């Protein structure tokens, strides 16, 4: 299969890669760009572990072709912390023990940030529905919800 060159922006930096036309964005990020923060839990859109934003929209990178990234802006978990400071969501996840094994955490953080960018004060129900595409098998979600709420509070008062 002939590979295709793609120019894109990842976490604010210009990036170029080549990929096969049937390669997913998730595979490109993980295998070609060395960005292994996005995880593959299913490869079929069911778990959200591969969540990234594409031109500001939350998507499953396993359901996007690498070639579709041409000219787009991609944000991954690796871009969430700025400099040496954690994003308030990241800090809240540590403070509220919102992770056990942590495999779902990158996807959930990316998804939660997309929500708070849109709605700084979501209700618990809104939060639970927004995150319904992010499976976590360890925590029962409770501490995740608390952590996002705490981060949202902190971001509103900042």
């Amino acid at each position, binding site marked *: 299969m002939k590979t295709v060159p793609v120019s894109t922006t990842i976490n604010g930096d210009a990036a170029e890669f080549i990929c096969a036309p049937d390669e997913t964005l998730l595979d490109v990020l993980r295998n070609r760009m060395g960005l292994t923060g996005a995880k593959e839990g299913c490869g079929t*859109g069911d778990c959200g572990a591969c969540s990234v934003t594409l031109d500001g*929209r*939350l998507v*499953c990178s396993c359901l996007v*072709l690498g070639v*579709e990234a*041409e000219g787009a802006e991609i944000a991954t978990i690796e871009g969430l912390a700025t400099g040496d400071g954690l994003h308030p969501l990241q800090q809240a996840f540590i403070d509220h023990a919102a992770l056990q094994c942590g495999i779902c955490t990158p996807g959930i953080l990316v998804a939660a940030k*997309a929500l708070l960018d849109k709605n700084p004060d979501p209700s618990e129900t809104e939060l639970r529905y927004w995150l319904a*595409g992010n499976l976590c098998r360890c925590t029962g979600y409770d501490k995740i919800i608390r952590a996002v709420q705490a981060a949202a509070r902190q971001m509103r008062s900042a």
Partner: protein
Amino acid sequence: MRYARPETATEAVGLLANEAGVTRVLAGGTDVLVQLRAGSVTPDLIVDIKRIAGLRAITPEAGGFRIGAAVSGAELGEHAALCALWPGVVEGCNLIGSTQVQGRATMAGNLCNGSPAADAVPGLVAAEATARIEGPTGPRECAVADIPTGPGKTAVQRDEIVTSIFLPARPARSGDAYLRFIPRTEMDIAVASAAVNLTLATDGTIAAARVVLGAVAPTVVLVTEAATALIGNRPDAATLATLQAACSAACNPIDDKRGTAEFRTQVAGVLAKRATLIAYARAGGSL
């Protein structure tokens, strides 16, 4: 596999027509990529329609809206005027998958994928929506109701693409609603579903109705007996019982891993009843 990103519908149709092998149109990709992963299709050509001019626009037209085939569910949900006019259609689209899936999935893709359980389709059929289809001989219009022809099968030919879906203007005192049954609250495929589109007379009785069921037959089912039961009445207990029975009678479902035929039949009627009450309230009716 090759990947093409045409900029016009004509170019897209040309690419499809000239490809001898297996082709796939790519909109949001939430069905196509799953199929690629499963190996259930191995296309020779993928035609990505998202960069075709106008396909990502929602445009007012004749009191209704024309929705480009590449508009995502999330974009639909953010369009206040569209949500106000056709809340039931939008809620059907917005039930598809997760937030992540909503960021990509399109209404046209849902339709063209041909699943009997597609969540956008019953609402579109209840709304008498039409699709504009571009083909080798130019554009044609087709009722959405005529597009699904069986599980995984549609009336859209392999060298055609749907370019937009049109939702018409609607009379005063109208409302629509869509409900589906899934075992969880999210992330499931409908086991049964119902869309109801109503227009009320000034006295609060139902003047016009369309009741459509999903996931209970090879394609969506327009249940005219259910509409007949509603017309001229308010959705009181007796009327709803007739509607529910008519809906259950119209079901022709299968047993599968998602639900038994018996369950689907029973629940479709319940959903139609509940959707009727929501649509009635949205139309301004009060019991």
